[in-house]
């Protein structure tokens, strides 16, 4: 039988919430530090 959209559990296949900023990655922290060092306003 044909498998329709959403039929398969996609939970472990595609990630959609990678873009929310609830967790600060190591990269983000370094970026923040770099901006601060360069004299930019940091909120």
């Amino acid at each position: 039988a044909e498998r329709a959209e959403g039929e398969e559990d996609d939970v472990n296949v595609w990630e959609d919430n990678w873009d929310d900023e609830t967790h600060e990655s190591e990269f983000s922290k370094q970026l923040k530090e770099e901006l601060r060092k360069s004299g930019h306003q940091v909120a």
Partner: protein
Amino acid sequence: IDNCGSLYHDFLMSDKVAYNYFLGRKAMFDADLNLAEKSLLYAFRNCPADSMSNKRKILIYLIPVKMFLGHMPTSQLLHEYRLDEFQDVVAGVKDGNLAQLDGALAANEAFFIKCGIFLMLEKLRMITFRTLFKKVSQIVGTAQIPLDAFQTALRFVGVTDVDMDELECIIANLIASKKIKGYLSHQHQKLVISKMNAFPTLSGVSSN
């Protein structure tokens, strides 16, 4: 095949999977991402679970398409299908880390070229710029962001060949493709972003 009406139901599933695989590949190269996603996803879902190597072939095209639409493959998926070449590409795009993305593309260049997706993956730089700039604007925390702050971020990730004009060009393209809501002030050398949802989710942008 799409115009054959009810006859379509009589085709073998294997033929329908193969048809959708090639249709999706063609759509990807024609930059019709929505059709590419639909076709390749159909092929991937309906390909029997025991044909790992065929499912892997489908994924090689489905992954870049999905990434453009804002859906990132999980690390387990990549590992399961022996597609670990994508791991650092995905990590770089997710973090807005252009150095990591460029490094991953260079390291696996031969593999990606063989698959015919190298140029496609290079276009992910645009999404990566968007995510890096999103981070910068969140760190700066105001609606008016000096372009200089973006330059600092680019230098930080090892991108040194982008001058102010090129930076404005990149941002203008991101605004034109609705990935950033705002406008550039060339006179003040600033990007002014919308107070509401200035960096819409990629999956939201592409479905419009």
